[in-house]
């Protein structure tokens, strides 16, 4: 299970016309889809948005992994539906809200599944965000799969020592997490300490404006994708208010 989760969250490089785009174009595309999803107020509209998202996802060959992410967001979405319905909204409205959540997650995951942590870093720097903040954010993103792998190994080790996570009453079950959480946290701390030392040893923070090995370049295709995104979403929103 945890392995599936790691699989769904981690970026894997694939060579596709979408992956090759400038990260800023991908970000714009995702934001446009995000806004379109937010502004849709009927089930039909949201289904159209989901279909729209699936086109670049299909081209990027990430449909399967996106589906995995969506399966996880489904639990939240069911929750949203139940709460709204219970509070007294009608079925259609509650369903719209629940589906909208899935569409929003899909729009966001389109960006994260096609953009490497490196590219993410360049975009954030291009936005002139503080360097330490950018670094902390990108590192956190990179650490997620590493932590999940740690978690798998810790689970194996403690199970081999007779730990049965799912045994006992509620209190016992929470106590069962201690042998798993402590090594997980300790390993994360060890890692971050080592990382900090290694970074400093390699001159992190030595100059105010470090140079970059890769320079973002916005080409013809990026321009086409971006114009399509903006024009398409304006039309979509305009039509959805009209109809």
């Amino acid at each position, binding site marked *: 299970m945890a392995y599936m989760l790691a699989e769904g969250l981690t970026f894997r490089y694939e060579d596709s016309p979408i992956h090759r785009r400038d990260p800023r174009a991908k970000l714009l595309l995702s934001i446009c889809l995000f806004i379109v999803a937010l502004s849709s107020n009927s089930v039909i509209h949201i289904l159209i948005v989901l279909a729209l998202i699936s086109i670049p996802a299909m081209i990027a060959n990430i449909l399967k992994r996106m589906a995995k992410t969506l399966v996880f967001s489904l639990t939240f979405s069911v929750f949203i539906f139940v709460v709204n319905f219970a509070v007294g909204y009608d079925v259609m409205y509650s369903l719209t809200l629940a589906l909208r959540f899935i569409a929003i997650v899909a729009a966001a995951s389109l960006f994260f599944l096609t953009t490497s942590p490196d590219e993410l870093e360049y975009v954030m720097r291009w936005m002139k965000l503080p360097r330490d903040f950018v670094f902390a954010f990108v590192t956190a993103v990179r650490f997620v799969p590493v932590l999940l792998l740690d978690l798998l190994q810790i689970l194996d080790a403690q199970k081999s*020592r007779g730990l049965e996570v799912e045994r006992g009453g509620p209190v016992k079950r929470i106590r069962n997490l201690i042998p798993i959480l402590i*090594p997980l946290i300790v390993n994360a701390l060890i890692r971050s300490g080592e990382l900090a030392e290694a970074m400093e040893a390699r001159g992190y923070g030595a100059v105010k404006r470090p140079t970059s090995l890769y320079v973002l370049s916005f080409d013809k295709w990026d321009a086409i994708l971006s114009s399509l995104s903006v024009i398409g979403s304006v039309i979509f929103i305009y039509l959805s208010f009209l109809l």
Partner: protein
Amino acid sequence: MIKFESVTFIRPNGVVALKDINLEIEKNELVTIVGANGAGKTTLLKHMNGLLKPTKGRVLIDGVDTRKTSVASLSKKIGLVFQNPDHQLFSESVEAEIVFGLKNFGFDEREIKRRTEKILEFFGLKELRDRAPLTLSGGEKKRLCIAAVLAWDPDVLVLDEPTVGQDLQNRLKLYEVINELRRRGKGVIIVSHDIEFLWPLQARTIVMADGEILKDGPAYEVFMDRELLKAARIRQPQLAELSTKLSLNFPFKGVEDAVERLLRSD
């Protein structure tokens, strides 16, 4: 007895980590497993206590299919010690770390006390009993991990890469532990890249490559077969290499053996 019946294991991402493995290991045997990175050694070990279940075929421990029982009950018989101590040490003291497994396996208080004392003594951890495991040195951590498993007295001790980062003293201690277990009729299975450590043991040796068993035989046969070693991407132990270069029929088992035979022959 540990028995693999045409076991194939395919990972969720499609990697075939084990291919049609057939294997029988008696409970009192000393077995070493070698092979390049990614050969499938750890995957094989994880099948022995049910952490992983075969995609095809079955694994039997004392005749019981690992699919039909729990990891905990299998671990009681087959004690696995993984490579990285930091993935398992969590208690506030060395003593508590040893008690953890004993509690899981339901020993009563008196028995827990008795076993803890015995194992602390045997592993030379008595002075460290109140120390936080995280503050121990790498070698002490490793010793503690092995001690924590041996405390419940499994029939077979399984060690994954036990010598990584271990100094001379700890390596000698490891030989001592292995010999002691053998004397008591226990089984020991060791996965290691450290062939110089394995060679003096002269154990039954299983060579793995790409999820398959290339060869299963005594160390003096396996490590004298240069073709095999090349295929498995493993180096020859130095004494075996020397024996090969001297065209000996039977290789030197250790330095003493070599000295004695060389002095006798001239």
